């Protein structure tokens, strides 16, 4: 019997010959990702750091992204504490305010690579399965212990094989695919599992795979994985990483999966996740016309160049509805620069968009676009939990960048497909 991706990679990192799901192993990850939470995290272990030092200068990757630029004296001081820690312990991988969202940085800077094992004190650490890494979220205390010891335990997960068949239709995107799957299997449908995507995946760019893997945690998954193929290799070589720098781990064809699911992409429609659960998924046609007050395109889920290209194609020469706000949140400085060079930012700003600094922005409700009671936000982010954007009496709806851009023009939820309701003249597809 063959092995799944999770069984193979955890065997490699634990030094075991062969593993089966359920076994507990000790692993040493290649990197430990932390962000603004590094300050409270290191404060937990100050005496130990002083006595034993950190496990390795190259293990941590620290990115300031969650509340940037600082919103209060307290957050400013957190950032200061982190900068001092980075200096004192000569941390090799530090990205200060302005670089972007930690997950985008991990991939863009080549820190997450095929066949690597990465843990991070952020739930969306599962994103790097997009390029064939095993990556998973942990809590702050565990990250603190990892800073000291470099190792932790993992349970070898059951694996779910999801086969994506056929091609998406125009106007339907990777975001619709992952929301559709979560709506199908529920927010706990992949709890504790490794999710592998197979089938006609070559139609998805690394950016689109990122969107799907990023939301693995929203179905409860431990990690989400795309096999490494020509698309991955081409992307990595575009950021200056030749195949000699990584060694991919691929699951066997006869691996044993706890569940096998098939999705016919050609019948998936644009969808929206309604408040207050990510698995409360409806076809956009069921909610067309619902009034929205704030729109958000960006975040680690959908804040990359291809997302803004779609938004710009829809918004070119148009204006967002006068009663609404459209927030644009690039996931990194590099994305921002690329969007500037392509003229995308001009189009979005002329349409009425407000550009936020590359980071987590309003996604976690701390600043930069907090909602008022009874307001609704249509967002490309990954969560629509009650209170998520700072107000428990507001509502968050999740959709693709195409749906959000098309809807911003009308101030109402709009079908982004050609000929869609409210949208007869959209000719971009």
């Amino acid at each position, binding site marked *: 019997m063959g092995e799944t991706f999770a069984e193979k990679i955890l065997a490699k990192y634990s030094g075991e010959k062969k593993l089966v799901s359920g076994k*507990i192993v000790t692993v040493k990850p290649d990197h430990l990702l932390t962000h*603004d*939470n590094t300050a*409270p995290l290191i*404060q*937990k*272990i100050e005496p*130990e750091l002083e*006595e*034993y030092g950190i496990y390795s200068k190259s293990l941590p990757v620290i990115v300031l992204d*969650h*509340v940037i630029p600082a919103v*209060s004296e*307290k*957050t400013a001081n*957190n950032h200061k504490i982190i900068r001092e820690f980075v200096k004192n312990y000569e941390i090799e991988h530090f990205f200060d305010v302005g670089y972007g969202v930690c997950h985008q940085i991990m991939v863009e800077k080549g820190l997450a690579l095929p066949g690597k094992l990465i843990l*991070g*004190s*952020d*739930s969306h650490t599962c994103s790097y399965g997009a390029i064939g890494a095993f990556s998973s*979220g*942990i*809590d*702050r*205390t*565990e990250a*603190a*212990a990892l800073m*000291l*010891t470099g190792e932790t*335990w993992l349970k070898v997960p059951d694996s779910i094989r999801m086969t994506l068949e056929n091609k998406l239709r125009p106007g339907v995107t990777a975001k619709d695919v992952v929301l559709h799957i979560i709506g199908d299997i529920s*927010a*706990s449908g992949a*709890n*504790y599992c490794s999710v592998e995507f197979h089938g006609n995946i070559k139609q998805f760019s690394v950016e689109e795979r990122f969107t799907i893997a990023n939301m693995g*945690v929203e179905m*409860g998954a*431990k990690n989400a994985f795309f096999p490494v193929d020509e698309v991955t290799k081409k992307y990595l070589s575009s950021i200056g990483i030749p195949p000699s720098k990584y060694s991919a781990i691929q699951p066997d064809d006869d691996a044993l999966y706890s569940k096998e699911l098939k999705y016919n992409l050609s019948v998936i429609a644009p969808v929206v996740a309604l408040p207050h*659960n990510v*698995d409360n998924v409806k076809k956009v046609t069921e909610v067309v016309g619902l009034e929205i007050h704030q729109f958000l395109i960006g975040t680690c889920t959908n804040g990359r160049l291809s997302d803004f290209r779609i938004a710009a194609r829809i918004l070119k020469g148009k204006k967002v509805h006068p009663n609404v706000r459209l927030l644009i949140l690039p996931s990194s400085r590099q994305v921002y620069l690329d969007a500037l060079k392509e003229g995308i930012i001009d189009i979005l700003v002329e349409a009425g968009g407000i550009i936020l600094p590359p980071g987590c922005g309003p996604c*976690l*409700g*701390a600043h930069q676009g*907090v909602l008022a009671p009874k307001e609704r936000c249509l967002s490309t982010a990954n*969560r629509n*939990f*009650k*209170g*998520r954007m*700072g107000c*428990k009496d507001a509502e968050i709806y999740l959709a693709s960048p195409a749906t959000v851009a098309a809807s911003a023009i009308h101030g109402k939820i709009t079908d982004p497909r050609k000929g869609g309701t409210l949208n007869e003249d959209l000719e971009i597809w």
Partner: protein
Amino acid sequence: MKIWKYGDNIDTDMLFPGKYVYDCNTPEEIIPHLLEDLDSSFAKNVKEGDIILAGKNFGCGSSREQPVIGFKAVGIAAVVAESFARIFYRASINQGLLLIECPDAVKAYSKGDNVSVDIENGKIIIGGKAFSFPSLPGEILAIRDAGGLLSYTRKKLKKNSG
């Protein structure tokens, strides 16, 4: 002893709102905001020894250990749920908070039932009926029994350097 009963998919924003994540880290700062957007009576009335009962996927969402630290600090004896989200599950082991995954026990509960937990024998008793729950694997139990991951790690470092 009070039972706090909640439904499915209680997410980390309901347990502890994201807007406080970078302002509140100590138990004193965390406790007033516990379950703020879910049940405003919780933080005011919770007492040592209380038990939380919940449905599926308790703790889904962010990597957010504040609710775990808060539950431990106010003396929650156990969180019993049909299932837990994995980061919350790990965080609870790492803070030494007792989680019990036992769907039958949750489903058997009716308002007013007495609830007690017998950790040694892996049993939860609800309204006179006993339900078994599996013990954690030895190496993980050792973390919880050390009072959490930090004290476990301290011991390990001391042992290795000594």
